């Protein structure tokens, strides 16, 4: 998969050095400021992408953080007489602080995603600009920076601004590059795909988003600080403009907002288009163009110009790779964990969970013993899935105790529970649709209890794909799998974190009898490797075949607990399933 012949840091240095000597060619001044504008937008669009492109949390408030940077520099340099260069890091940090503050509150609200997050950031822009406009920070007339001296180290003021712009753009793009290839980046992509799943796989979603937001704002603020000195006269209307956010979004989408280099491509292309068509002069035509391109791109080219190119490349590589499948050889199978059969692994005591008036779990007490397969059955709506959601940490329990291997789970976030060695599957498979089958599985290995690095996680993922029989689909996207294969993918993903406790939520539903037999065989093998299994299922034959013990739930109560065949004959259980007449 490596196309990189030149190591990336070297490449960045070369590009940087090449662009840095441009001013010494003696080109017309127009050219320098045009390139500066390209750098500015590359930095802004890339910084937007670090949060919004990677995680899918669209910020419409990038203007607020850009503006915060502009006014930090303006205030510090003009009112307090700070040297210009010193104001830049403060501009970035202050903007980052704003971002983290907003994120710390907003990211706690589970529903505040997509367009609602966009609206929130939009509102923040207006609040911030109103405050700046009505206080001494600006007060209305705008701020002049023409008297602020620029450092002489880099020659002329224009040259200085050019070089600083280049530096900020390079650092921003390099950060996006580094994140893209890191564990953190993988976590951010998972958040974009399906945040709940990401959290359950062990991705610390809250922290990841918060840091991404902070970093995104930092670079926006930094770019704003520099731009203040380029503008020499700043106003609230131009700084905290909605158009700043829109341009950043547009450029990022135009290039491709899921790739680290997409926004730079978009920024270069858009700036060139706008300059060459309007000479940077006609604001009206500019806006019409921006509007038109925005519409065309999002409808017809949602992955962006560069994004489409990258996808093509990846698809071609995948085709070549699948022609000669070469799953890496893993030297040895991971050793089966020494289980202490019979001891309690998971203990639920008086667990309660209600949704408004509906008591989904009413004082549920049960134990799962290490090394067993526990069948969890009950009619629809009896609380089985709620129990799984509570154990895996998606829902907070209202009361009672919940402990896993002696650890209290009640106060833990879902990703911490995953790290302890609890994993689950979803009844309706929820693969991350942007990631290949292999990476979906590798994700679990990266964020599970073992936190493997990416290559190791991939190698492990291969093993689980071979185990579940999905190896020949490894490089495909989940969208091309049928239901059976998706269920197997769920299973492979749950296994890849090498859990101690595996919660299976109706893995058999919708499968044909042959597929079912294969799946049952797999589950038996999983248990033989030392993993404890909780098996939620409606298929009675499978329950009787597979489980060591069965717990029956009805209306949120445990109504039976014991050996499968005994339990299924109890009158209470028969009544719950088939009605009174059959009991």
């Amino acid at each position, binding site marked *: 998969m490596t196309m990189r012949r030149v190591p990336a840091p070297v490449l960045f240095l070369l590009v940087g050095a090449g662009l840095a000597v441009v001013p010494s060619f003696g080109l017309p001044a127009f050219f320098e400021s045009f390139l500066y504008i390209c750098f500015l937008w590359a930095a802004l669009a890339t910084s937007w992408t670090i949060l919004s492109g990677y995680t899918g949390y*669209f910020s419409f408030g990038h203007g607020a953080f850009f503006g915060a940077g502009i006014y930090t520099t303006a205030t510090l340099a003009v009112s307090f007489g700070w040297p210009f260069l010193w104001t830049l890091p403060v501009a970035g940090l202050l903007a980052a602080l704003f971002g983290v503050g907003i994120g710390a*509150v*907003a990211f706690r*609200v589970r*529903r*505040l995603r*997509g*367009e*609602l997050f*966009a*609206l*929130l950031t*939009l*509102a*923040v822009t*207006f*609040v911030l600009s*109103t*405050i700046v*406009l*009505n206080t001494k920070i600006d007060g*209305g007339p705008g701020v002049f920076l023409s008297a602020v001296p620029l450092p002489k180290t880099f020659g002329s003021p224009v040259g200085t601004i050019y070089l600083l712009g280049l530096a900020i753009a390079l650092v921003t793009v390099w950060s996006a590059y580094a994140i893209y290839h890191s564990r953190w980046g993988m976590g951010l992509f998972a958040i974009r795909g399906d945040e709940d799943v990401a959290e359950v796989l062990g991705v610390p979603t809250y922290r990841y988003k918060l840091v991404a937001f902070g970093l995104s704002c930092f670079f926006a603020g930094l770019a704003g600080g520099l731009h203040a000195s380029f503008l020499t006269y700043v106003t609230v209307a131009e700084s905290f403009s*909605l158009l700043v956010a*829109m341009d950043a*979004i547009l450029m990022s989408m135009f290039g491709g907002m899921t790739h680290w280099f997409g926004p730079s491509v978009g920024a270069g292309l858009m700036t060139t288009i706008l300059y060459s068509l309007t000479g940077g002069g006609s604001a*009206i*035509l500019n*806006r*019409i163009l*921006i*509007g*038109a*391109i*925005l*519409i065309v791109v*999002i*409808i017809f080219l*949602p992955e962006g110009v560069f994004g489409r190119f990258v996808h093509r490349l990846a698809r071609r590589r995948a085709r070549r790779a699948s022609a000669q499948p070469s799953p890496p050889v893993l030297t040895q199978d991971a050793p089966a964990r020494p289980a202490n059969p019979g001891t309690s692994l998971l203990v639920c005591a008086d667990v309660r969970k209600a949704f408004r008036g509906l008591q989904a779990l009413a004082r549920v007490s049960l134990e799962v013993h290490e090394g067993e397969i526990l069948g969890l059955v009950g009619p629809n709506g009896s609380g089985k899935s709620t129990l799984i959601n509570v154990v895996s940490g998606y829902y907070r329990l209202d009361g009672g105790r919940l402990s896993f291997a002696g650890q209290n789970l009640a106060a833990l976030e879902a990703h911490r529970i995953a790290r302890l060695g609890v994993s689950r599957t979803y009844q309706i498979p929820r693969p991350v649709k942007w990631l290949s089958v292999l990476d979906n599985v590798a994700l679990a290995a990266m964020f599970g209890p073992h936190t493997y690095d990416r290559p190791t996680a991939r190698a492990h993922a291969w093993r689980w794909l071979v185990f579940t029989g999905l190896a020949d689909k490894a490089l495909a996207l989940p969208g091309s799998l049928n239901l059976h294969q998706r269920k197997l993918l769920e299973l492979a993903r749950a296994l890849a974190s090498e859990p101690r406790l595996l919660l299976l939520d109706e893995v058999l539903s919708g499968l044909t009898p042959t597929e079912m037999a294969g799946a049952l065989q797999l589950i038996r093998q999983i248990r033989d490797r030392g993993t404890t299994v909780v098996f939620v299922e409606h298929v009675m034959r499978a329950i009787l075949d597979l489980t060591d013990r069965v717990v029956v739930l009805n209306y949120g109560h445990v109504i039976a607990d014991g050996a499968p065949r005994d339990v299924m004959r109890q009158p209470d259980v028969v009544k719950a399933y088939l009605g009174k007449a059959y009991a």
Partner: protein
Amino acid sequence: MPSLTLLLQSVLSGLFLGGLYGLLGLGLSLTWGMLRLINLTYFALAFLGAYLTYQLATVFRVDPLLTLLLIIPGFFLLGVLLQEAFVRAGVNEFISLIVTFGLTLIIEAVIQWIWTADFRRLESGYGAISFRIGKLFVPLPELLAFLIAAAVSFLTWAWLKWTYVGKAMRATAEDPQIAAAFGVNHRRLALLISGLGAAYAGIAGAFIALIYTLAPSQVYAWIGVVFAAVIIGGLGNPLGLLAAGILIGVSEAVTMAVTAPGWAPLVSFTLLILVLLLRPERI
């Protein structure tokens, strides 16, 4: 602290303005609540309506209120065409926000192209008429805008609640597939809603022309406040929206009277942020 009269006068003008917020937000509230499309274009259409009213009234000497006879059917048609285009292009809830923002940019730029960025003021007979209730000053255009807004909101609410089409609409908003299984033609309802939304925007625009001095960039000035009203009022709920509009209008006006006019946006946006953070399930 301002005098009691000034405070009451502020409340009154906030009330009138709040009605206009409600009317302007009605299209957004309906399409968002019923069609799951966030249509910003209505703000641009309202200003297009305002400028058309201005043009007809100053150049062709048409009575500003009579221009509504032209604007309402014309904008209804525009709204229908817009919805048809959205369906054909496969616009969904999230990208609708971006697509319609692009459209808003274009319409605003076209307005500026035709009428320039200069301020325009419609001088009509209505502007001069006002009367007094006690010490309070009541301008006719504002009062008229409020009454029409309240009437339109109430009629829309009643229509949604009691007529067959209204019920079908609410059923579709709740569960499009089940509604379709019962024979509701979603596509045609969507056209109707979008058309109505545009017509409401046109009416609001005519009153904006009657009351305010026009400038193209003011398109954006209304977006945030009206969004706040739409979300606080509850999506697809005309009376809730009217009440929320009045709430915001009055609190803005009082803020302006107590502090300085520049602080007014803080009220609506802070309200919007609070609603988003504390009551996200309303949306």
